[in-house]
């Protein structure tokens, strides 16, 4: 290809050129506007950076090719045929292009989010290195505040939320018997917004004055007064949030309109239910965090006074808007995991999920209750005090639907035929650790106790029990479970088990002791602490390093198994749901003939029961596809 062709065709060359143009546009616009107003100096670094973060982000999406089809169509130009015929991935290079195949996008999501997981994890290692002893060890307080802020933001916005979207992207269309998502081009755009957000957050370390250092919560008025690094957060959140909303809309439409014949709502696998309810949460709640960050951005860049008490602003209002998203976000980060665990446990215990309908209803109950508890993050914020008791009660009530789920999984194990595979170990580890995280959640709802422990290490312990022992364990369970489907290869079971046991042990040694230091008086988000907490912090730090190392086993297992693992059968877990009835990896269009669903998804032990039937097939599901799948 000639250079001109490269620079005009969608791809990385055009993206680089486009980003450059975006930067120049920002510079020009700011200088022009400041000249028109007669402001001095004409060149204002912070203003240019603010505009550039928006324009360069959008320019990247334009350059890489997210909008080409739409622009051509809108302008009446001949569109490039964009059906799936050309869109599987034939080499690793295809994963670096705009691609509309949900299976490719799913893997793009998962790999990208794991890159940010590693980055966030390395920041956690630096945090623990600094906290290994009182005083200043490695980083100055400003860098430290930046580290924990970027760590949390990457883990939440660039790992847990989107990796679930990635797993669902791959699995949901297959599970419901659909050839793809409802809006494949929107799906691609959703994915490509993520690296923009992640790079922006990470790059904030290069900003003058350092990375954003106000935590992932970015409370005003601290966030409206901090150096320009803060702007990287407020704008990155817009990209991540827009990605999240677009994906959620896509899931909702896909699940509502594209289910296979016979797949009624109450025959859907619980992972589909989980992503349906999660998507509802995302669509309703995410605009609130977008709003909160826009208001911060306006206070910073446009001189508004939303959160400036001196100008009639209201500081506590920020927290209300922020938590109206960010509490439901906790469920956005957990419900898909609930779905994964239901799939893994029923297939590995060879039993129907106990109380399937209550499992589905409890997801809906969590969605509704999830919107009534936001102010439990604000018990000591100085908000109007009568609101505290009602919020305590609603928070406690969420324990009921959550309890239904825990007890139903336990009942699913009962009298099963349990296969302790790696995904099953992670699912069981999840149940126990999430119960502990749920219990510390109850402690954090009880007003007199939470007044004492809020903003301490007890909260840090709790959040890691629900987000690591909870969400991340389910992510590992899901990745091991669907690894054979996604790659057509089997992972190494022994390494998987070692990974589980090391994670489980060092997870507890890292986050368990944080409960003690928190109640005893150590606040969170501090680069230094009183000497009385030194010994426990040393233990926590050492455990956290070993915990971090255990991840390398996972990484090694995934990489080597993907390259050289033994070929996977179509259905290594002998599961009933539809994605296992096609080859591993699935054919380009998922189903060469669309299945008809005739029963529930988990009819293990019912003689002759099947979930879906394929009209062209005999009894045994025959893998259809191009990849020469070995059959056990």
């Amino acid at each position: 290809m000639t250079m001109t062709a490269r620079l005009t065709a969608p791809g990385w060359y055009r993206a680089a050129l486009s980003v450059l143009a975006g930067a120049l546009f920002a510079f020009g616009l700011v200088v022009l506007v400041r000249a028109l107003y007669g402001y001095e100096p004409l060149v204002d670094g912070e203003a240019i950076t603010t505009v550039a973060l928006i324009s360069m982000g959008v320019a990247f999406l334009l350059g890489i090719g997210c909008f080409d089809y739409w622009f051509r169509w809108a302008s009446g130009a001949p569109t490039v045929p964009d059906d799936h015929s050309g869109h599987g991935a034939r080499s690793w290079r295809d994963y670096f292009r705009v691609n509309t195949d949900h299976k490719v996008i799913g893997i793009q999501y998962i790999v990208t989010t794991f890159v940010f997981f590693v980055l966030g994890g390395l920041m956690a290692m630096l945090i623990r290195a600094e906290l290994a002893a009182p005083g200043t060890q490695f980083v100055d307080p400003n860098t430290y505040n930046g580290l924990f802020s970027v760590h949390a933001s990457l883990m939440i916005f660039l790992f847990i939320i989107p990796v679930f979207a990635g797993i669902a992207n791959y699995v949901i269309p297959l599970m419901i018997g659909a050839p793809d998502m409802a809006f494949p081009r929107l799906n691609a755009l959703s994915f490509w917004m993520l690296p923009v957000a992640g790079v922006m957050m990470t790059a904030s370390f290069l900003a003058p004055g350092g990375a954003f250092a106000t935590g992932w919560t970015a409370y005003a008025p601290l966030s409206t007064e901090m150096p320009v690094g803060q702007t990287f957060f407020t704008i990155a959140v817009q990209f991540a949030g827009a990605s999240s909303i677009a994906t959620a809309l896509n899931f909702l439409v896909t699940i509502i309109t594209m289910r296979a014949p016979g797949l009624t709502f109450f025959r859907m696998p619980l992972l589909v239910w989980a992503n349906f309810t999660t998507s509802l949460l995302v669509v309703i709640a995410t605009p609130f965090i977008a709003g909160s960050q826009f208001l911060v951005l306006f206070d910073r860049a446009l001189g508004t006074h939303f959160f400036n008490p001196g100008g009639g602003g209201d500081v506590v209002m920020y927290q209300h808007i922020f938590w109206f998203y960010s509490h439901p976000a906790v469920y956005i980060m957990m419900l898909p995991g609930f779905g994964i665990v239901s799939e893994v446990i029923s297939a590995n215990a060879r039993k129907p999920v106990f109380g399937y309908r209550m499992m589905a209803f409890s997801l809906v109950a969590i969605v509704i209750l999830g919107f009534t508890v936001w102010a439990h993050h604000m018990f000591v914020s100085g908000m109007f005090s009568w609101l505290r008791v009602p919020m305590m009660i609603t928070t406690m009530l969420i324990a009921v639907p959550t309890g239904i789920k825990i007890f139903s999984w336990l009942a699913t194990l009962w009298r099963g035929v349990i296969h302790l595979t790696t995904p099953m170990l992670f699912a069981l580890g999840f149940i126990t650790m999430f119960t502990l995280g749920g219990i510390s959640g109850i402690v954090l709802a009880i007003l007199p106790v939470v007044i004492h422990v809020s903003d301490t290490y007890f909260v840090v312990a709790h959040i890691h029990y629900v987000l690591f022992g909870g969400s991340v364990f389910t992510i590992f369970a899901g990745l091991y479970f669907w690894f054979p489907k996604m790659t057509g290869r089997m992972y190494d079971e022994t390494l998987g088990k070692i990974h589980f046991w090391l994670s489980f042990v060092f997870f507890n040694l890292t986050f368990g002791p944080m409960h003690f230091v928190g109640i005893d008086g150590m606040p969170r988000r501090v680069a230094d602490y009183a000497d009385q907490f030194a010994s426990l912090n040393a233990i926590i730090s050492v455990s956290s390093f070993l915990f971090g190392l255990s991840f390398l086993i996972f990484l090694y297992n995934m990489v080597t198994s993907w390259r050289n693992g033994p070929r996977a059968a179509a259905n290594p877990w002998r599961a009933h749901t539809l994605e296992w009835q096609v080859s591993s990896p699935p054919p380009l269009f998922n189903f060469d003939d669309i299945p008809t669903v005739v029963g529930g998804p988990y009819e293990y032990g019912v003689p002759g029961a099947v979930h879906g039937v394929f009209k062209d097939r005999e009894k045994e599901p025959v893998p259809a596809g191009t990849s020469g799948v070995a059959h056990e």
Partner: protein
Amino acid sequence: MLALATLASIVGVAIVYAIDWFPTQASTTSNDVDVLYDVLLFVSIPIFVGVMTVVVYSVMRFRARPGDMGDGEPIHGSARLELIWVIVPFVIVSVLSVYAWIVLDEQEEPRANEMVVRVTGQQFAWHFAYPDASGKTVRTDDLVLPEHRPVKFDITAEDVIHSFWVPAFRMKMDAVPGLTTSFRVTPNRQGNYSIVCTELCGLGHATMRQSLKVVPESEFAAWLEKKRGAGAANVSAGPSTTSTGVRSQ
């Protein structure tokens, strides 16, 4: 299995009760909080241990033998069991909520003979002011409280949000620019206790630690009198800005 779960729960509760969770108690309501926490442990440890027991027991008892490709019993649910595990947690959380509400009301009840202390958070130090009936105010960077005298802290901030936490009192409240927040305590034990800022407030957040002193009433009166005399100029000068502020304890 029930016996196993009970035994494990007893051991679990014994272990967590052996842990010394909280810092010193220095106010009349500290003990209520600690007792409430103990009750929470007593309720929740058996739940956690119960879940663990079912998981471990099931894995041992129902684990597939090598080569067993069979399925489990197709049990789809049990309305009775499901009703039980809706109702029992509902009752538990309801009772705990009522109990917590009672403790909260007790903590926040206004008391006779209350002394008001104004607390102002600033990056990165706390300032205190003792208004008295005559309208004069004593401003200081040291917090001294008389033992057994109810005190109400009126809290605000000058710049960003801070949070005023006295672990020994089990009380905390954000200091918010533009708002006055408050909490009440009655110190009941002499000594030095730490004040910790728990809301991220910028670069020096980690070092925003001070200490307060609880002293006998007479000693407090003498201290206040001395401050009033010494700080005659300070009375009208507003919060001291010359303070070195950042102190480690």
